[in-house]
């Protein structure tokens, strides 16, 4: 028995890693199939919607766009102009200057003729205090704009102040540097207005990468494919996640995350759960999980909706340092959220949230990088102990690589059949090239970032957000 122990252990680990890989691949295939059906269904249904009727109606519900800004002086004026140019009728824009050390506020005051006003704030959620106060424009052209200057408290704290200030039924929480398309609000509000037998508590849109695109006066004029390989890889990664992943989770009513870059919320529910958690770096995921948990515990029928249309364009990290820092934060956010809401996990009381979404996120988002690292470690031991059957190893590696490439090409085809954004000649070839290079150029860094995220979460608690140096989309 003891003599056979090494062999037994090797067999045991072989089965574990093989089983995990098969489960992951199966889940991706199943999600992709569900996504395909749901996308076709969505496109068919959407062809009957006249968005102009929603946007021009005076009875369309009111929305507040809440955009926290920290040291965004470089582009703040153009970004706000973009937010103010939305075609929706019934909305306002609340910019929260979260203790910026630069001249963001002064620039806004000058550009939009702002003056300090007295403002009643319903402090339903505790936040950091105001610094210079609340500002509104004297120019009627900017009557939708409210600028709030507060002490620095982080993104979640700034969003919470926005929730306190908003007087509207719905709030769109966005990153101020994001470019929202003009019809984004009416597309996002649609699921809330369509629901009759359930409540839509939040909706998320697709985030697209704007690096190298031409943007003028807050409008996306030309979509280009960047030359930078890290950005290219992220474009494909985002397409995969949004077109082949979230669409399926939306169908299964299992969405656990809405991108912090752009999400629309039912303000009443967001306030009922206490707003954003200021103690986590993954506040965008955490609030969705908390809102869902709240609805499950109230035993009310609800949905978290997802809009597959490309509505929001953002700048992605274009160097490995910032890329790793961003993914590190995502990893810590996931760990924090799953840990905080561990009661939900594998708990049938929470329906699909407890039995499907949470286990999936735990296994294939939380544990996947750890399993991958353990796999590599195990492989190294096998090499050292001369226990590798190289023909198997190489073939499995080739199969995994080819499967990833197939999956990426299917993503590109889905993009072509649906939104067809990368229309210029040559872009197809660039996308295909990226499908072949991304697993080599981007994946190792994602894995490293996830590992570092785990390390930092357990051993380096002082790390919080990390810096994102913006080049500015309008200057790209």
């Amino acid at each position, binding site marked *: 028995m003891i003599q056979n122990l090494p062999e037994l252990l090797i067999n045991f680990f072989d089965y574990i890693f093989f089983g995990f890989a098969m489960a992951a691949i199966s889940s991706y295939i199943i999600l992709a199939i569900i996504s395909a059906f749901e996308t076709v269904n969505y496109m*068919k*249904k959407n*062809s*009957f919607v*006249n968005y102009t*009727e*929603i946007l*021009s*109606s005076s*009875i*369309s*519900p009111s929305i507040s766009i809440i955009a926290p800004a920290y040291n965004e002086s470089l582009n703040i004026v153009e970004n706000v102009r973009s937010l103010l140019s939305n075609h929706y009728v019934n909305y*306002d824009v*609340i910019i929260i200057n979260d203790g910026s050390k630069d001249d963001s506020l002064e620039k806004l005051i000058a550009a939009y003729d702002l003056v300090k*006003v*007295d*403002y*009643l*704030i*319903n*402090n*339903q959620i505790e936040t950091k205090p105001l610094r210079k106060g*609340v500002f*509104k424009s004297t120019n009627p052209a900017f*009557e*939708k704009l*409210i600028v709030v200057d507060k002490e620095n408290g982080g993104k979640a704290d700034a969003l919470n102040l926005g929730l306190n*200030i*908003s*007087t509207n039924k719905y709030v769109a929480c966005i990153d101020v540097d994001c470019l929202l398309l003009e019809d984004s609000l009416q597309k996002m509000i*649609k699921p*809330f*207005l*369509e*629901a*009759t*037998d359930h409540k839509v508590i939040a909706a998320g849109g697709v985030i697209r990468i704007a690096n190298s695109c031409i943007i003028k006066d807050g409008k996306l004029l030309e979509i280009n494919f960047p030359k930078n390989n890290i950005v290219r890889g992220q474009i494909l990664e985002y397409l995969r996640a949004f077109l082949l992943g979230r669409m399926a989770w939306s169908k299964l009513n299992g969405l656990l995350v809405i991108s912090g870059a752009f999400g629309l919320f039912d303000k009443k529910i967001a306030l009922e759960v206490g707003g954003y958690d200021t103690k986590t770096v993954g506040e965008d995921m955490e609030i969705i999980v908390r809102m869902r948990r709240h609805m499950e515990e109230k035993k009310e029928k609800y949905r978290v909706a997802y809009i597959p249309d490309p509505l929001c364009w953002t700048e992605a990290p274009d160097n490995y340092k910032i890329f790793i820092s961003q993914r590190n934060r995502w990893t810590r956010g996931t760990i924090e959220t799953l840990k905080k809401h561990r009661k939900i996990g594998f708990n049938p009381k929470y329906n699909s949230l407890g039995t499907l979404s949470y286990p999936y996120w735990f296994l294939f988002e939380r544990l996947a990088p750890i399993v991958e690292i353990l796999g590599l470690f195990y492989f190294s031991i096998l090499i050292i102990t001369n226990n590798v059957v190289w*023909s*198997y190893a190489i*073939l*499995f590696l*080739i*199969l995994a690589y*080819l*499967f990833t*490439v*197939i999956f990426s*090409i*299917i993503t*590109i*085809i889905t993009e*072509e*059949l649906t939104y*067809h954004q990368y*229309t210029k*000649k040559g872009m*197809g070839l660039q996308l*295909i090239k990226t499908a072949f290079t991304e697993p080599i150029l981007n994946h190792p860094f994602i894995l490293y970032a996830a590992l570092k995220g785990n390390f930092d979460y357990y051993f380096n608690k002082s790390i919080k957000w990390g810096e994102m140096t913006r080049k500015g989309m309008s200057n790209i």
Partner: protein
Amino acid sequence: MLDLLQNSIDAFNNSHPLIRFCIYLSLLFIATIALLLVYLKNLRDRLRIKGRIEATYQKKYESDLIEYLYAGDDKNINAEQQKIVDYLKQCGENRLKRKLIIATLLKLKNEISGETADAIQNLYYKTGFINSATSKLKSKKWDSVARAIRELTLFEIKEAHDEIIQLINHPKKEVRNEIQKYLVQLFRFDGLEFLNVLENPLSELDQIQLLEILNKFNNMEVPDMNNWLRSTNNSVISFTLKLAKIYNQYGAKDEIIALFNHPNTEIRIEAINVVNHLGIFEAVEILKEDYFTRTLEEQIAFFKMMEEMSMPDDVSFIREHIQHDNFHIRISVMKIMNLITVDSDNTFKVNTVTPDFTIDKDLTIAS
């Protein structure tokens, strides 16, 4: 070279079945990638030329239609016109071409008026497009049915009414929505007859769309709404309350007041908002009587109403709520007290101190 190939084949034949399976799978994956790439290339090429083809055909159909319109009388068409009709009929058998012809017909119909517009309408009959649209109403595919109804709406085909109304409780909401829009677009308020028989809920989006259509027409006689306000379908009541508000239906006040006791909270709140809009003062005392048994949302709506409708007699009732836990009620109380007591008691604002909000000077409420 041949030796290497032979060695490889031998190695393959002598290998473990799992290795052989993996090799087969790899080859399958490579073949799949090759096929997907060919398909992707083809797809991108097709998408790129699709726009050009559509533009070419659209131009062609537009010139054909203009030629038809100016070639002679619409009632007694000549040979040249008949040739165009036959050509359009033939093209209409192709789905894409039919779509382009319909789009061109509608474009011209919207751009011109009078006899020429009637001629386009008649052409819709002569080409037989109306028959294909009405026959699609029986289709098993819900999207074909919805598309047909939309087309009949755009060409204002009132004759299809009887056939369409039968589908009003269609299981697909997209079809129901197209029917509702057909009825209201073509028959205005009379089209709202479907509210009497509607079994499914009317979503907020449906309601917005219908109100937007009605908003386009002026000088219409608003029908009696009392029946709809008594509907067992809550969404019908909700929609009727919006109608009552927009069209100032003061005559429906008794039915609206009766909704203060409706089992659905949302409807009770909407009824209070409508009463506020219509300025039905008798509602104030009714709501005051059972104010404390109402939900917080109703109480907020009540105080919002009182901002517009309170009288000096209400001061003692309102003053009782000055320290209310709810922010919105406190704001309303302050606004009302400010309005009512501004002449006699201007010290109100100075005396009000509550811990969790601040007032510096005047109130500024975000719009």
